């Protein structure tokens, strides 16, 4: 075509307008979907906040559960959650990270490792109550670990282990091959390569995976109920740190316990309105804890990744 009449230009513009309208439509649909999701969550949270506001006092954190709603608190629940998380983290992190590193850097690539890989991904999707049943049979009955903090910690560790393995592998895959070759070319052994490069550079991703796994674990109720956590605990486990040598005390590991979600579950099953308020207040705290952990994960990832550029 040698020349284009003005009508052609008008045609082109009309056509562009028509296509851009579709663009706009999808944009609007996306915003709507996002708003719907966010609003639901925010509404729920505000609702909880309003219900539980009156109970969010310092005493609420320092009181044991009680038959009188006004005097009941979450001391044994948050201490229990904290200690269970401690066990979970100290078991799941080393195991998960080591397994992830082995699968990425050491394992030969053949059908057996393929099967392992598929199964780890599947494990991340197994309903948590299944882990509870497994733990009841294995930890409580077979190993006789009791309905204790260590059983709960081990159970939740199993639950988040696949998440940590997957996060570790993802983080390791992000490290360019040129870094590995660079280290090997200078005479590094495999372990030196892992220790000096793979571990430090995958740390941001591993941290993120660990914290997100922990945020999931702290809210888990089903497996903890299955292994038989108590719903009414009016004492604290023995302190892990003591004033006399050897300063550490592991009795707390075998102590009976309760955790935040179980305390909430217990209170919501009570008919009195005052207990519903307690449940709402405890829920606000649990949600805040989870959000804080996720926030920490994002912050850590940002901080640690600043020095990693390829």
């Amino acid at each position, binding site marked *: 075509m040698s020349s284009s009449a003005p009508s052609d230009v008008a045609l082109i513009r009309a056509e562009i307008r028509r296509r851009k309208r579709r663009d706009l439509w999808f944009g609007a649909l996306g915003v709507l979907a996002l708003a719907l999701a966010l609003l639901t969550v925010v509404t729920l949270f505000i609702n909880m906040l309003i219900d539980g506001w009156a109970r969010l006092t310092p005493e609420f954190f320092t009181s044991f559960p009680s038959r009188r709603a006004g005097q009941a608190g979450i001391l044994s629940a948050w201490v229990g959650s904290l200690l269970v998380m401690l066990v979970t983290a100290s078991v799941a992190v080393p195991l998960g990270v080591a397994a992830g590193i082995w699968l990425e850097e050491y394992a030969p690539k053949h059908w057996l490792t393929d099967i392992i890989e598929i199964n780890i991904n599947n494990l991340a999707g197994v309903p948590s109550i299944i882990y509870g049943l497994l733990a009841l049979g294995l930890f409580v009955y077979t190993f006789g670990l009791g309905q204790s903090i260590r059983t709960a910690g081990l159970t939740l560790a199993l639950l988040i282990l696949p998440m940590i393995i997957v996060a570790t592998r993802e983080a390791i895959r992000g490290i360019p091959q040129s870094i590995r070759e660079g280290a090997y070319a200078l*005479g590094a052994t495999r372990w030196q390569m892992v220790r000096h490069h793979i571990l430090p550079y995958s740390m941001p991703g591993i941290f993120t995976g660990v914290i997100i796994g922990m945020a999931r674990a702290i809210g888990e109720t089903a497996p903890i109920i299955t292994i038989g956590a108590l719903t009414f605990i009016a004492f604290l486990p023995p302190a892990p740190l003591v004033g006399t040598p050897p300063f550490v005390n592991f009795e707390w590991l075998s102590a009976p316990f309760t955790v935040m979600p179980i305390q909430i579950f217990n209170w919501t099953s009570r008919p009195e309105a005052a207990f519903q308020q307690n449940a709402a207040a405890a829920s606000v705290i649990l949600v805040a804890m989870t959000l804080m952990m996720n926030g920490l994960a994002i912050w850590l990832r940002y901080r640690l990744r600043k020095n990693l550029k390829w």
Partner: protein
Amino acid sequence: MDPSRGAISELPIKAEVRNFNFHYGEFHALKDVTMPLCERKVTALIGPSGCGKSTLLRSFNRMHDLYAGNRYGGEIILHPDQTNLLDPRVDPIEVRMRLSMVFQKPNPFPKSIYENVIYGQRVRGVTKRSVLDDKAEEALRAAALWGEVKHRLHDMAFALSGGQQQRLCIARALATDPEVLLFDEPTSALDPIVTASIEELIHQLKEKVTILIVTHNMQQAARVSDFTAYMYLGELIEFGYTEEIFIKPRDKRTEDYITGRFG
């Protein structure tokens, strides 16, 4: 031939490739390659993409052992001790401790400049600060980087420009006192000015170390090397003094490539 130069076979030899064959799975990538590496000289490997020049270079420090599915046969003899670098009984780590490599793209570790340079010493278990400091300075000077970084040794290596990063990688490779330095297209990711400085550096380095360099750039081979090997489809077509290869190649295929008829 310039008579004052003499026959290649009479020069001191640092390494020899003998009847080397390489397979990537079913693909026969290198066929019966035999060539010498003269001591404290620069030998360039040239040829069109896919001719196997990088494969040959990476065989010297057994990089291929890192990946499954690679098979090779033949020998690469390192003098004076006559060690066959390819012998399965020779640990690839031993090989990599004697031969250093500089890669195509600068690949500094996300660590400080200092930690990068001394990484080879760290791997060897050296912890004495004074030894490490001396090594770092010596290697950075040899790589013509000392003046630019001596006041910021503990800055991150990524803060350096591309050319500085590549010189850092050269310093890192030198800090282990290698007998042979392998360069895998070291300037292909760099601009012409930086390339010139790296070439100048290679020229200086050959006083101390034997150099093997793969290059895509024929002019570069002509500028930096004493010997050139022209490879084509996995075969070594011609090996000789760089001047001879470029001025009067014996093989028609070499001539076609040199004169830019293909490549």
